[in-house]
Every structure is written in structure tokens, then in C-alpha cells.
């Protein structure tokens, strides 16, 4: 979701630069900061409403309930609310502002296609997101990106109108160099902020994989689950750009092209599945 809000900030930045009207940027930044707080606070309710999930009780799905319950004991977390999304594409996500308000949702396709040890791997990954407070982190990153973009904008304006009023010529030349550098930096800063945010999102995925493996003591389970999820060609119907980063693996399926270029990689919310599997298989838990 934060990826979405950061994109809003970035768009606002581009528009306001193009039309030299900073009102648009202020609106975009305020809009995304407020809505990222709203989405952080009510993330459980919003996401569940968006993805048409229904709750699971002990009686309705004993196996899933016990898997979540037992892994929560291992992780020392309170039991989150458990939801199932009726969708044949295998995927899962976790959200909620803190462990007490956490939600774990899995698709019915995931329950169908995965074996118990693989399901445990996926749930452990999701519980690790909850334990690591990744929702809070994502919100903070959005706010910070917003601040960086605003600062860049102010700086650009200041160098244009305020800063460079010096008298003698030599100083003026230096001033010009600094001004050009400042303009380039203030244009690049928002882009870097977004790239950094995506990089953080990818790092948190690796971290949740590793922590999940520590919970189940069986990295192979999650590795196999990731293989199955990525091999499944069916796209998740209820996912969109705003909720993509929440899922355990990117819900969009790109065809063919196994090799991922540096450029695509920079803009991915999740690390490539092959790398995650390789990292899991290389884990040494002793």
C-alpha cells in the first residue's frame, strides 16, 4: 500500500514541477501521509474489505487454525484473526497495525495446493511480518519519503529564487555550480527515495523468510511453497497495485522471461522468487 502512496507523492511532485504549482505537491503529500496513517490504523478492515475475505474459526477449518495457533505459540505472538479469500490462485498476506490487531489471510487455492509443511512455511513467513512490525515500518517509510520529496521541492525553489544572490563574479561561478548540482539532486532525491523504499520492502521479505524458517525449523517447506506459488500461472483476481506488496509473492504473473534485468529489479516490491528459494536452501539453522 505504501508503494501506492509513494507513487502518489511522486506523481504530485512531477505535476507540480511541470506546472510550477506547489499546491499540487502539498496536496499529494498530505493526501498520502494521511491515507497511509488511515490504512495503517485500519489496515485489517480495509484490506479485508478490498479482497473479499471471510473469517475462519476452529470448527470451519481445523487444520489451518491449528497451524496458525501453533506457530503463534512458537513466535510468542497473540493469535491473529484468520481469513480465507475465495480465489484459486495460491497466495497469502498479513496485515494489521500491531500483533494484537493482526490479520492473516490465505487464498483457498493456497490451502488446496500446499501440503502441511509448506503451509506452515507460508504462515510462519506471514507471522514474521507481524512480529517484525513491517506495517509500521512501511507507514514510516511513506511519511519519510513524503518529507524528502517536500524538502527537495523547497530546496529547488530556494536555489532558484532565494539563494544565489551574491555580488562578485568568482563567487557567482561557484554559486552556479552548486545551484546546478542542487537542482540535479533535488530532481533525483524523490526517485532515490522511492527506490530506497522498494529496496526496504524487498529486504523485509528476505527477513520474513529467514525468521519464518527459524519458526518452523524447516526452510525447505517455505522454499517448496514459493516454488509452487511462483509456478502457478494463475493471477490473483482480488489483488491490485495498491495491495501487491502485502502478498507473500507478487500476485502478478509475468510470462516467459526468466532473467530479470537490473531496471525491473529496482522497481520490484518482492525479491525474485529464485533468489528467495536459494537463500532459504542456503540457510544454516544450527
Amino acid at each position, binding site marked *: 500500500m505504501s508503494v501506492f502512496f509513494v507513487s502518489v507523492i511522486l506523481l504530485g511532485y512531477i505535476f507540480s514541477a511541470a506546472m510550477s504549482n506547489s499546491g499540487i505537491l502539498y496536496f499529494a503529500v498530505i493526501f498520502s501521509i494521511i491515507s497511509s496513517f488511515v490504512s495503517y490504523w485500519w489496515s485489517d478492515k480495509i484490506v479485508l474489505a478490498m479482497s473479499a475475505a471471510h473469517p475462519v474459526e476452529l470448527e470451519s477449518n481445523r487444520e489451518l487454525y491449528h497451524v496458525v495457533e501453533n506457530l*503463534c505459540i512458537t513466535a510468542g505472538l497473540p493469535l491473529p484473526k484468520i481469513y480465507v479469500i475465495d480465489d484459486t490462485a495460491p497466495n497469502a498476506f498479513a496485515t494489521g497495525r500491531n500483533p494484537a490487531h493482526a490479520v492473516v489471510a490465505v487464498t483457498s487455492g493456497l490451502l488446496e495446493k500446499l501440503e502441511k509443511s509448506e503451509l506452515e512455511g507460508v504462515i510462519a513467513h506471514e507471522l514474521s511480518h507481524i512480529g517484525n512490525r513491517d506495517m509500521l515500518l512501511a507507514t514510516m517509510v511513506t511519511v519519510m519519503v513524503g518529507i524528502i520529496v517536500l524538502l527537495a521541492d523547497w530546496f529547488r525553489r530556494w536555489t532558484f529564487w532565494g539563494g544565489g544572490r551574491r555580488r562578485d563574479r568568482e563567487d557567482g561561478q561557484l554559486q552556479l555550480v552548486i545551484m546546478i548540482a542542487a537542482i540535479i539532486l533535488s530532481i533525483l532525491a524523490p526517485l532515490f527515495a522511492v527506490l530506497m523504499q522498494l529496496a526496504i520492502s524487498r529486504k523485509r521479505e528476505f527477513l520474513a523468510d529467514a525468521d519464518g524458517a527459524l519458526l518452523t525449523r524447516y526452510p525447505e517447506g517455505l522454499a517448496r511453497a514459493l516454488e509452487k506459488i511462483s509456478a502457478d500461472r494463475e493471477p490473483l483476481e482480488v489483488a491490485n497495485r495498491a495491495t501487491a506488496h502485502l502478498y507473500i509473492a507478487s500476485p502478478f504473473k509475468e510470462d516467459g522471461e526468466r532473467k530479470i534485468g537490473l531496471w525491473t529489479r529496482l522497481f520490484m516490491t518482492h525479491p525474485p522468487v529464485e533468489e528467495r528459494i536459494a537463500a532459504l536452501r542456503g540457510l544454516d539453522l544450527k
Partner: protein
Amino acid sequence: MTTWIILGLIAVVLIAMIAMYNSLIRQKNRVDEAWADIDVQLKRRYDLIPNLVETVKGYAAHEKETLERVISARNAAMATSTGGAQERAEAENALSSTLKSMFALAENYPNLKASENFLELQRELTDTEDKIQAARRFYNGNVRDYNIKVQEFPTNLFARVMNFKQRQFFEIEEPKEREAVQVKF
């Protein structure tokens, strides 16, 4: 000037000591809490066993010896409930092995295996044992973190003075072997 430097140094050392003490206390309480979680699950297992034994008795009354061994192992395990982690783990392992032989024996009684009550209790017991394993992992993870703190320099010097002792891990057998017996029809 030198007095200020000395005073500053003392303040730094004091703050460091307070931080060390608090982190030790926090981790120690986590270990205790995790131990209480194991206790809850172990108690649940103790409560399930008499019902299970009664059910088995209904179908296989003459297997008295095995059933009695289960009950006495259960009582022995309950008696160690104030003991240390290692003592309890041994008693729990003994109880698990008697349960294993009871389930192996149940294989010979098709009526027992078909009994709804028995199946329900068996499911409950399996679930409880999974939960014991989960609680055990949480406990051991916390003990590992706590022991690292107690052994690490410079916290170890402080821990020794304040009498923070290393804790034992809770090592019990994984209940997987018994599950393998269960699915053989």
C-alpha cells in the same frame, strides 16, 4: 576539569549498568513466561490422558498393564511439575513413550480405532503435543537469548555479581514417530 571527566565517566558506567540490568531482567521474565506457556500445554495433556485411558479400557480392558504404565508415567510427570527443565523433560519423554505403546496397542482393536470418542481424544492429544513442541521452541529461543546475555562480555561480569544464572533448555522428543503408527491402517 578532571572532576567533571571523572563524574562523566561514572555517569556513563552507571547508565550502562542500569541498561544491562534491565535487559537481563526483561529477558529473564520472557523465559519465565515462556516456561509458563509450556506448563499450560503440559497440564492440558495430563488432563486428556485419564479420559483417553478410560476410553481404551472400554474396548481393551485386559491390556491393563500398558494402561497402568501410562497412568503412573502421567502421575510421575505431574509430580515433577515444580522441578527443573531437565527433570521435567525426562518425565515427559517417559510419558510419551508409554503413550506410544498404548497407541501401538490400539492398532489391534478395530472397534476402538473406529470409536468417535477415541478419535476425538487422539486428535486433541496430537494437537496438544504439537502445541507443546511450539511452546518448547519459543521457550528454547528465549533461553538461548537469555543465556547469550548472561555469557556475553561485559554483561557476564554484571550477571555474575547480580546472580543471574544460565537456564536449561527444555529438550523433549518430537512426537512424529507416533503419528507414523497412527496412519497405518
